[in-house]
């Protein structure tokens, strides 16, 4: 019974418009940023390292190579209202749920093979 109440509460805030994406995919995360009372959208584009958690607490990690070849990873709460939109740009072909091995790779080795749809 108490689980029911929790579920009802979470349902209010859970997003329903989340695209299907997973580790290896290249995504653009549109983040709402409030600066001096003004709101603007910033896009964070990178490779999804993995998803974690369920329900309200679900999150995902995105890694991109920033300026000066510095790796930048951001963890986003999946259902956060500050995420305006998630675009899936490319599907990656990976064999594990968390692709942390990318952290140890540099340059061309750090690429993810693109998934080719079977005809």
């Amino acid at each position, binding site marked *: 019974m108490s689980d029911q*109440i929790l579920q009802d509460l979470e349902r209010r805030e859970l997003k329903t418009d989340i695209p299907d994406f997973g580790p290896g995919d290249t995504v653009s995360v549109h983040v709402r940023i409030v600066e001096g009372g003004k709101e603007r959208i910033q896009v964070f584009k990178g490779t999804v390292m993995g998803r974690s958690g369920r329900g*309200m607490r679900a999150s995902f990690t995105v890694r991109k190579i920033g300026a000066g070849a510095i790796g930048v990873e951001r963890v986003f*709460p999946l259902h956060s209202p500050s995420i305006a939109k998630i675009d899936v740009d490319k599907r990656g072909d990976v064999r594990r749920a968390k692709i942390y091995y990318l952290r140890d790779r540099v340059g061309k080795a750090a690429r993810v093979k693109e998934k080719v749809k079977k005809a």
Partner: protein
Amino acid sequence: MAQGILGRKIGMTSVFVDGRQIPVTVIEAGPCPVVQVKSSEGPDKYDALQLGFWEAKESRVNEPKNGHFKRAGVKPTRVLREFRGMSGFEEGTEVKVSDVFVPGDTVHVSGKSKGRGYSGVMRRHNFHGHKGSHGTHESKRGPGSIGAGADPSRVWKGKRMAGQYGNARTTTRNLVVVEVIEDRNLLLVRGAVPGARNSIVELRKEA
């Protein structure tokens, strides 16, 4: 004036407030019938309200208690608690969450903590235990020395040792009310609250 209400811990989840994810405990609070009003002018010599919570079958409540509920003109409840210093409600009326709390209030939550049984000193008092290696044997989780030798020839009172841990009344103070959902008698409080799910909690606020 102190205010309070009784509730049942539902569990924890999180909500987003201003883009930040905040951990909250959901509590189903009230409605609580006022079973008895005590006042400093009356025979009790102090101000308090006795509140009931969680309706019970009349057949499950003993005769003296049933009479007590009947006198106030309320349905019998399983839980009865007194809230000292609370006033402003008539006997036989109901206290609802929204009567007592609004978002932003600070609240003290009391309940019975989860029982952990007879626990060692590491779990119970956060002792560090001993080294895992370097010659340690037979005592990796023990307390170490419990005092000096010939003087005082005894162990000081209150010395922290192993023993029953949990299943005791605990109060978490100054939690902030995040949201009050009036029509479902729910209260969202920031942070954790003592006790297991479905356990009874007392919510109080001062002034």
